[in-house]
């Protein structure tokens, strides 16, 4: 049975780089891998979702549906709640506790739900929340939220630390390698 990882967030937060990194590592590890993402309209600050699936056997469908995800990596609190129904009963949510108001909230047409992560926890959902934005800033850039969260995911997936750092070196531009490795460590050791 394939391991299913969903990466969800707000367009512009860098989820495509995160899925690229993860896909490259899994391919190098010899897994069959499928990654599915939607480009276009959703890039403009909308809700974005990427599916990553891997298995030693063949992976067929590139997408993840309700009740199938082993992990949901959410770049924002509300997005974790939006996709919670995709989680398996023993699945885990890793979430950046940052709040980004969507336009209906900004213009007062809807309310941002309070204590949304506690609500999920109270329903028996495993929620691992961390302030990835602060950790990314500590690493040197607010844009490194994606790598902080990949560091946190690496802890769960059981793929070697060295493979991840090698993949970071192979994927990001040389001048950003140190920053990203630091961001990865902050997530990994959180």
């Amino acid at each position, binding site marked *: 049975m394939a391991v299913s990882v969903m990466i969800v967030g707000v367009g512009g937060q860098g989820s495509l780089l995160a899925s690229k990194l993860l896909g490259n590592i899994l391919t190098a590890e010899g897994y069959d891998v*499928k990654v599915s993402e939607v480009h276009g*309209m959703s890039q403009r600050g909308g809700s974005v979702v990427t599916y990553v699936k891997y298995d030693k056997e063949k992976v067929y469908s590139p997408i993840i549906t309700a009740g199938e995800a082993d992990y949901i990596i959410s770049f924002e609190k509300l997005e974790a709640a939006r996709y919670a129904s995709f989680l398996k009963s023993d699945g885990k949510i890793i979430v950046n506790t940052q709040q980004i108001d969507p336009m209906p909230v900004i213009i007062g047409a809807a309310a941002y739900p309070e204590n949304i992560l506690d609500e999920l926890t109270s*329903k028996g959902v495993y929620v691992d929340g961390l302030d990835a934005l602060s950790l990314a800033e500590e690493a040197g850039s607010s844009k490194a939220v994606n790598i902080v969260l990949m560091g946190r995911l690496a802890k769960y997936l059981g793929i070697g630390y060295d493979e991840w750092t090698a993949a970071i070196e192979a994927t990001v531009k040389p001048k950003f390698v140190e920053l990203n490795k630091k961001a990865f460590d902050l997530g990994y050791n959180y």
Partner: protein
Amino acid sequence: MKKLMIGNEAVARGLYEGGINLVSSYPGTPSTEITEFLSKYDDIYSEWAPNEKVAMEVAFGASLAGKRSACCMKHVGLNVAADPLFTLSYTGVTGGLVVCVADDPAMHSSQNEQDSRHYAIASKVPMLEPADSAEALAFAKSAFALSEQFDTPVLFRMCTRMAHSQSIVETGDREDFEGIAYEKKPWKYIMTPGNAIKRHPYVEERTKKLTELAENCEYNRVEMGGTELGIITSGTCYQYVKEVFGDSVSILKLGMINPLPVNLIKDFAAKVDRLVIVEELDPIIETHCNNIGVKAEGKSLFSNLGEFSQQTVREVLLGEKPETVSADSPVPVRPPVMCSGCPHRGMFYTLAKNKVTVLGDIGCYTLGSAPPLDALDSTLCMGASVSGIHGFNKASDNCGHTVCVIGDSTFMHSGVTGLINIAYNMSNSTVIVLDNSITGMTGHQQNPTTGYNIKGDPAGKINLEALCRSVGINRVRVVDPYNLEECDKAVKEELAADEPSVIISRRPCVLLKYVKTGKPLKVNSDKCKSCKRCMKLGCPSLSFKDGKAFVDPTLCVGCGVCPQLCPFGAIESEVEE
């Protein structure tokens, strides 16, 4: 070499390995990356054409010259290119010609979810559809030979899931295709009635031969498993079926989806107790089964709408629903929005403030329809704003209170013909070109107005002002959409003028790398009187916190539009402090 590739990159790789010499396309999600990846190969010629019809005719020219060529487009782009396609079916090709078309079931980034397979049937052209990136590469590589062997363009169908899903491929070597020497063949290439009447029987004969091929070819395969249930499917739907059933059912997987085989389907149907067709959008395979007298269930079970998934297959064929947990609190939607600093915002604010009727077009600026701007009245297809306003003004007494908006790339695509109609048939229309100096929505492709080609090298640059004047528009003016007063003045004056006019609202997309953004602005909460006027802009950087306006410093690019709205001077730049 094993590599993870999105479907579109795999198509590009396949076309490359197949010996392509030229690609000409117009961008359109989810097809854009095929051409972008092809443009990275220096040994082939690639370009962005102004529209899909031009692109297909360029590819035709290359084929006529004996080279292998392709053009790529989204499903609605094929509507634009339908004219050359239908007669290309008659002329056939010299060098192989592949037309890639990407459908968008569920309309992730489109205005309709039409099924391109209808075009293959209607134009009598073979169509291939891969089910993962490895097949995308293999099918694309083989498509040129198929095109040349049967003297036909080949349609290559992708859908959003295929186009944007990555799976592992093994790349190969590029085929050495020298080209075919040009030879004048008027009987084949001059489609006068006298010649076309002789080509039509060839087309019918070709379909018969292609049907014979479909019975036994590398594209179609039977995977026999349990015989209680047999499923005919293609593309991504094959993956969903396999995910649910594995080897427990029998599957006829079609990779050539036009023309469809007859005996292969009849034989398969005879081996299984129950036959089900799993296909997204329209019942193309099902209708074919009905036509050849094979009883199959399709759309009586599955929807014509949207995308499928393994869950769709599981629910419909096994009656299984997943157990899920979700929050009770309502989760507000997060629609896409115009970016912080988007140059379109100032113009849309101006139009909304003046309560103008706005005929819109296709691009990022369709987002001007969302609240709080609510600044659009229509969006139909590429170019329809300019043609539409002419009809609207001719037919209504709302003339003088209606404008149309269209982006620079869309104007080049098919807006300019509408403007020619305005000039020729003389309507007093006001056309606003939202010139952000790039094709934005599809992810920053160059176009004829930018001065750069697909590789980013300097190229010819169409002067929008000169173009509009040359077709007969006397009133052409340029405004900066970051300057609200200037926008307001231009809109009021041009609406009041008694002749047609063009307002070019010009400022480059804020996401372009060369655009220097400013420092984030800040709200002086002592000065803020909570009037919420700034909230009318719909800027994602602006929100209300503790009863006062708040600028998110991680998002704001200091465009300076919101301070122009604040009657109390409460939104300040850091420099002024």
